[in-house]
């Protein structure tokens, strides 16, 4: 019996994009991209870490089947396929236009839980610590509650031993080794380390795979019931008030000297 791992992955707008490329639709309360400087979609960074964590469990000598699950309004298959090219086995999209701009984790959890029910048996769900669009950091925790299983959030190492998941959980000044019985949910953070680059062989193998796409009715959901209402969404105005300190003849040591004096004058040091 292989260990069935579900890796959750969300398609998000590239979080490293400068805010100047953002356009906000205040009516619909969603972030659109500038028609010229389009923001490319990517797999949420921490979700690549989640796939990486699943692959490392396989490399530790376990027989592992990795299913990537994603819910959203629309997918750029080439972008999402990176999770397959990294070495995952299967990919399932739950696609519905109603999932557009969903910032309410209640809805996401409702959808993912129903999809997981349809997938059937699983041992471990690995998710990212947060999705870089709404920064909610709560879908995996909610999912664990709905499924009635333990959850270990924000980890940097994930191992499976004797029916337990053993993790290094990141805490403010170090880490804790934490274990929970399977099935369980864990979330991973970037301290896990760089996600691998797909190898040519895995890219070829992934090219032959076709993600399966489910609709909401395929997973038995008739309607979505949000519990949070978005009242407003905006880009905060920023006024620069920076005093740039220059040295005599652009001498940097002199600038540093003046800075020290300014800090003293302002009674900051």
């Amino acid at each position, binding site marked *: 019996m292989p260990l069935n791992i579900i890796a959750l992955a969300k398609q998000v*707008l590239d*979080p490293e994009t400068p*805010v100047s490329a*953002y356009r*906000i639709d205040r009516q619909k309360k969603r972030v659109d991209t500038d028609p010229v400087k389009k923001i490319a979609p990517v797999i949420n960074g921490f979700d690549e870490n989640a796939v990486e964590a699943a692959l490392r469990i396989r490399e530790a000598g376990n027989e592992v089947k990795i299913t990537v699950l994603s819910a959203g309004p629309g997918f750029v298959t080439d972008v999402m396929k990176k999770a397959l090219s990294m070495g995952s086995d299967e990919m399932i999209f739950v696609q519905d236009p109603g999932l557009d701009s969903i*910032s*309410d*984790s209640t809805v996401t*959890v409702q959808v993912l839980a129903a999809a997981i029910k349809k997938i059937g048996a699983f041992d471990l769900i690995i998710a990212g610590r*947060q999705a870089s669009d709404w*920064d909610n*950091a*709560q879908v995996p*925790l*909610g999912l*664990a*509650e709905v499924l009635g299983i*333990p*959850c270990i959030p924000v980890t940097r190492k994930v191992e499976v031993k004797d029916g337990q998941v053993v993790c290094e959980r990141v*805490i*403010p*000044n*170090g*880490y*804790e*080794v*934490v*274990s*929970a*019985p399977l099935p369980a949910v864990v979330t991973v953070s*970037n*301290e896990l380390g760089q996600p691998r680059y797909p190898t040519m062989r895995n890219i070829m193998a992934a090219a032959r795979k076709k993600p399966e796409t489910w609709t909401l009715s395929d997973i038995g959901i008739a309607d979505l019931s949000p*519990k*949070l*209402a*978005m*009242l*407003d*969404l*905006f*880009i*905060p105005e*920023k006024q*620069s008030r*920076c005093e*740039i*300190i*220059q040295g005599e003849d652009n001498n*940097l*040591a*002199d*600038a*540093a*000297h003046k*800075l*020290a*004096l300014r*800090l003293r004058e302002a009674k*900051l*040091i």
Partner: protein
Amino acid sequence: MADVKGVFVIGETAGGQLDAGSKELLAHGRKLADSLGEPLSIAILGDSLGGMPKEAIAFGADTVYGVTDPVLKEPQPDAYLAALTKLAQERSPKVILVGKTPLGTNIGPRLAFRLNTALAQDSLEVKIDGGKLVATRPVFGGNCVASVACNSMPMMAVVRLKTADPLARNDSRSGEVVEVKPGLDPSVVRTRVLSHVEEKQEGKRMEDAEIIVSGGRGLGGPEPFQKELTELADLLDGVVASSRAAVDIGWVPYAYQVGLTGKSVAPNIYFAIGISGASQHLAGLSGAKNIVAINKDANANIFKEARFGIVGEWQKVVPALIQAIRELK
């Protein structure tokens, strides 16, 4: 079921004391309770509570639920969650506030789902508007701000630390202390902590520091963190911090990271050296009073946030700054 009423905050303890974040939460909670005209309660959990209930009342609570149980000896998320679910079901508060701490971000969302309600994450501001809890929160890595209203009871929010000052301590305030014995079954604890490793032994906590000297990818390697940055920090009685880029490359451990997925800090001066000022980094700096940027790129975003800036290579600026400050002392 009792009336749905009142504001609840979830207290956290450190070394047998109510922690600073709980006092900030009480200040947020007091404002909400006053605008609802309803009482403010705090739940404090542990195996024994000592002087904490009196302390909580002095900082603004009307009622303290002192929840004691042997299973609560360690702040175990599973045990906290079981006790808090029971308490919230019995007392049916209208609003529950949780701090953005490792424990709070773990149990807050889970409590919301157990209570069949929703939670606004990472809120900078919470208020009551039209009877609803409305939270203001950064989204998209801090590039945008959203305002969200809770439409189900209890209305819950995780509140970022350092977004309110604790109320002035008033030891003559009166309040009620209610003892709660949840009688937890030890089997509620499913996740077990096997060991605890501190990687950064520091004199001062970054969260409490008045001066922070922080470095980013622009430093070019780990040495400047040990040398120039530490020297500057020591001189000013401050601590050294970093951006995530420096953590990801392995120059400093995660404990140094400031930002959205690192620490939130509120120093009087934050020196940002070789840090570009990405929104996710700035997300940890909303409480910083003065940012001093040293960056060789005049267009770096950090200059939009800084009060003082020098455009230039840190290698030339920082040693001179150390020397100048030494001379001023």
